[in-house]
Structure formats: structure tokens, C-alpha cells
């Protein structure tokens, strides 16, 4: 079984040209298996999540009914990125499974939208949001270890409640970021091979081997994003996660959900008086 397609270049060099397309189905099946297994686990085996009690603070008592979670800019970015991602996945892989249409133009346009939205996100998250809130810290790993031990039936102290994002969410963000950067960087290079409005074609930018590796990386990250997208959509529509999903639409979550899952000392909702009665902040 070959995971890559190889060809002989005019110079007699054996070079990879792209991934084997059956990997599309592998990615889809992997995503579906994950969600089936997880759904069965949650339905029949999962126990109520237990957390160490978080300290009650004066701010906790003063919380508004709606806790601001995502700013309007962050939400717009998320949905624009989601639209671009779906457009990219459909335009990339539908033709490979027999649905024929003029996909290349739509694909690079969607890729351009994704790239611009990611650039915006990097600037926005770096200078206007709490940059480190999405990166795992020592507490996340310590709590993760405790949860794993308790899951395996071993004794361990209760984990703390989550900061703004649970460890799984942070790890998912890291994997998506990595895959996204790979498809963006390789995709921009690949745009030199087709006619776009941005730069003149230059198929000699890299050697045949480098081009081949670029197509392979683009393909691997692409099929990886199929699985990641399936998993993301699955969690977005799970009943217990709906408050989080809703917060990506309305910008806020209920005080009850916040206190149930999140530690107010790790996710400090600042400027409460400004947010009271609104849902637009971060």
C-alpha cells in the first residue's frame, strides 16, 4: 500500500507528486470512528465531571448573568475561517471523489481568505486578546494527568476547573494551527504554479523534489484537517458543549455554566461592570 504517489521527473529523479487519494477516505473514516466511539463512551460510561472547588472570590459573587467570552472580532474571524475551511475542503476533495467542477479558482480564493483571516487572528490575538489563554500551561498538564489517573481508576487529587479553555481545546487549537500553517505556507507556494492575480507563474521556484514534498505536505495537512473538522463539528453540536458553541455566536455564556466548568481565578472576567448586560467582550 503506497501512501504517496511517485513519478519519474524528466531528469530521471524519482519524486513524490502527491498523497494517495485513498487517504481522504481514511481521514473521513477516522473522524467518524472517533465520534462514534466518543458518543458511545459519553452515553454509557462517562461519569459526572468532578473538580476541586474553586475559591469563592468577591468577583465571583459579583458576576453578571452572561459572561463575555468571545469579542465580535473574534467571532467574525472564527466564522470567516470556518467558511473558508469548508470551502477549501470541499473544493480540494470533492473533485477527487468524482464530483467535477471548476475547483482551482474557488480553492485559491478560499485559501486567500483563510490566509488573511489567520493573519488578522495572529495580530488580534497577540495585541488585543489574552495571547496565552489558548496555550497549555503547567496547570493544564497537571490537571490533565490527574483526570487521566482518575479515569484509569487510580487515586489522584481532584483536578481544578478549567481556565478559559480546557486542555483538550488548547491541544486541538495547537494541532489545527500547525495543520493550518502547513497548508497555508505550502498553498501560497503552490499558487506560483497556477494563474492567480497575485504573482506571475514560476514553476521553477523549487526543485521537483521540493515541489513534490510541498504537495505531499499540503495533502497530508489537508486530509488531517478533514478529521479535525469532523471532530470539531461533532463537539460543537454535542449537547453538553452547546453553551460553548452558542458563545461563539452570541459572544457570551451563562454564569452557571461558567461557574460549573471554569475557575474564576484562572479565567478572570475583568471589567465586569462594563460587560454587565452585554455579551460583547473577551
Amino acid at each position, binding site marked *: 500500500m503506497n501512501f504517496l504517489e511517485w*513519478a*519519474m*521527473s524528466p531528469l530521471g529523479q524519482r519524486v513524490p507528486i502527491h498523497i494517495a487519494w485513498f487517504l481522504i477516505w481514511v481521514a473521513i473514516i477516522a473522524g467518524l470512528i472517533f465520534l462514534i466511539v466518543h458518543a458511545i463512551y459519553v452515553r454509557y460510561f462517562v461519569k459526572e465531571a468532578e473538580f476541586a472547588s474553586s475559591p469563592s472570590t468577591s468577583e465571583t459573587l459579583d458576576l453578571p448573568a452572561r459572561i463575555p467570552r468571545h469579542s465580535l472580532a473574534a467571532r467574525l474571524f472564527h466564522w470567516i475561517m470556518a467558511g473558508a475551511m469548508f470551502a477549501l475542503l470541499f473544493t480540494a476533495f470533492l473533485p477527487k471523489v468524482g464530483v467535477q467542477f*471548476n475547483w482551482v479558482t474557488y480553492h485559491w480564493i478560499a485559501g486567500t481568505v483563510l490566509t488573511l483571516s489567520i493573519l488578522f487572528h495572529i495580530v488580534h490575538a497577540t495585541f488585543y486578546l489574552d495571547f496565552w489563554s489558548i496555550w497549555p500551561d503547567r496547570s493544564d498538564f497537571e490537571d490533565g494527568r490527574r483526570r487521566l489517573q482518575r479515569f484509569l481508576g487510580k487515586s489522584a487529587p481532584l483536578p481544578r476547573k478549567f481556565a478559559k479553555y480546557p486542555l483538550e481545546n488548547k491541544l486541538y487549537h495547537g494541532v489545527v494551527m500547525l495543520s493550518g500553517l502547513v497548508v497555508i505556507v505550502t498553498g501560497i507556494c503552490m499558487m506560483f504554479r497556477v494563474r492567480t492575480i497575485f504573482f506571475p507563474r514560476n514553476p521553477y521556484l523549487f526543485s521537483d523534489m521540493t*515541489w513534490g514534498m510541498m504537495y505531499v505536505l499540503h495533502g497530508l495537512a489537508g486530509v488531517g484537517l478533514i478529521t479535525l473538522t469532523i471532530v470539531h463539528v461533532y463537539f460543537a453540536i454535542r449537547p453538553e458543549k452547546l453553551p460553548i458553541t452558542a458563545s461563539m455566536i452570541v459572544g457570551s455564556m451563562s454564569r452557571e455554566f461558567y461557574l460549573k466548568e471554569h475557575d474564576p481565578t484562572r479565567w478572570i472576567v475583568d471589567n465586569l461592570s462594563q460587560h454587565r448586560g452585554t455579551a460583547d467582550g473577551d
Partner: protein
Amino acid sequence: MAIIRDVMPAFQLYQPTSVADAQTLLQQHGSDALVLAGGLDSMDWLKDRIRKPKVVVDLGGIEEMKGIRETSDGVQIGAMTTLIEVAQNPVVQQKYRILTQAAELVASPQIRNQGTIGGNVSQDTRCWYYRAGWPCYRAGGNICYADTPVGRNREHAILDADRCIAVNPSDTAPALIALDAKFVVLTPKGEQAIDAEDYFIGPDLDITRMNILRPGYLLTSIRIPSTWATSEFYFEKVRDRNVWDFPLMNVASAIKSSGNTIQNIRIAVNAVAARPLRLKVVEDAVRGKPRNAATGEAAGKLAVQGAVPLQFNAYKIPLMRNLVKRAISGVQEAA
């Protein structure tokens, strides 16, 4: 140019004698099978060892796919009818002269004796990078060797290029589009009559195929309706060697006029894109206009809108402009 490397690779040869048997074989072997009509295109692929099919299905013994017969609404030409038969058929000569002209200009007499009309419309592109077996887009790779700053692309596309810039080399295809022919294709789901212009596909839809034929599909015949019979026809082919050659470009038009006014028209060009192009915009623009040099001039300019020249094929733009002009106004008016 492709290099003859060796004798042909080994394959299993099937010679069905009925369409039903051929269809069964093609569906049974799917993408492992190569369809052999006249063999003029296929033999190159085999002798060059670029294609190594496990199975070759030779259609030469299927009598029901040969010959031309008149129907209640035109003529039906079997896909295995040779080009010489098409060119010499009295009904085609009398009513669909444009097809006679196109068939007469295909290659050489020897090739027209062997080549079939089905093979002529279904043949692969002549792009030498592709035919040399290099891993270009059309061969499933990720590059077009012709569309590079030093690529030899004198014969390549000026319109509708999408990564691949190969062109369709058929001479009869634009004539059949001008005649509003229907291509009868047997698919696993049954028989379909497809408009001639829709039989061909460009790289935007599928970069590895030039027509709608998938593994298991079979072009059985071509139906030409009487709609455009005895219209005013024009066919012109431009090639490097007038003795025999593939087209640098060709044009075909069928015009119904009243007095000097163009009532209706169908016009198509080939060898400018990966599929023969029906020029609907031109048709719409000249309908109702006088058939003269001015109309032809305007049509020619309209036809080349959006054309993108490559390093070595800029000549194709004025060539196409003038061929379209002549196809509408006639040679004398155009001059």
C-alpha cells in the same frame, strides 16, 4: 517528440463482435481496459510504453458500429465508420458538407482509411510533454512542463487554460458541434445522447480526460439532425504542413441566412483550448446582422476576448480572429 522505446507491452486482446459484448468487457475491466478504434492514437501510447493496459478491447469487429444511415431526422454515423467513408458518403457530401471538408482534411489518405470518426473525436491531446510520459498535470502529476518560461508551447492553448494548456486536436469535432450533433454514449446506467459540445471537457472539470468517456463508457454513434442540413457552411484548417498535420487551429460554421442577414448560426473552433469551443457569444452577437466583412471583423474581435498568449503562441490570437472573421463573412468578403 515521443521516443519509440520498445515493442508494445503485453496485454490481453479482446475482439468483441457486438456492442453488448464490448460494453460488458469494458465494464468488467474498467480502468484496466484501453479501447482500440482505428488504433492510430492508441498504438503510439502502447509502443511508447507510456500506457500499459492489462486489456485492450478492439472495436474493429463490431459491424453495428460502422456505416452511415439516414434517419427520419438526419443521419446516424457509427463511431467505427472510417473518416474516408464519412468524407465520401453522398448524403454527408450533399447535406452536411462541412463534415466532408473536415474529414477530408484529417491527416493523410492512409490515416483516413484506418482512422474512425469516433477515434477522431475521442483522441488524446498531442502535447509532447504529456505524450512523452512526463508526470504533468494531465498525467496525474503536479506541473505543466509546457507552461513554463522556456516550455515549447507554440501549439498550445490560448483560451480556457487551467494548469494544463494542452489542446484538442480533432478536425471533425468543431464541424460536428456546428452541425449540432449528438454523441450516443453507452454508460453503465444506459444510453445517453450528449450534445457534441458537452462531450468534450476541459481541465477545469477533469484535467486527466478530454471527453466525458469514463472507464466502462463507449461512444457508439453520432447523430446529426437535419436542422442544419444544406446550410451555408465554412470549414478551414490551418496547419504547418498542408500535406498532413494536426491543426494549429480550425474553425467550422453553419449559417442560415435570409438575403444577406444571418438568421441563425453555430460556430466552433478547435486547437485553441483543451476542448473544442462553441463560440456562443459570437453567435449571439452576429445573429440578425448582415453577413459582411464588418460583422466578421467584430465577431473575430469578440472571439478572442480573454485569450492569453503563452511564450510562443501569440500568433494564435490574430489567427483565431481572422478564422472567425472568415467563417462568418466568407473568404472573399474577409479579404
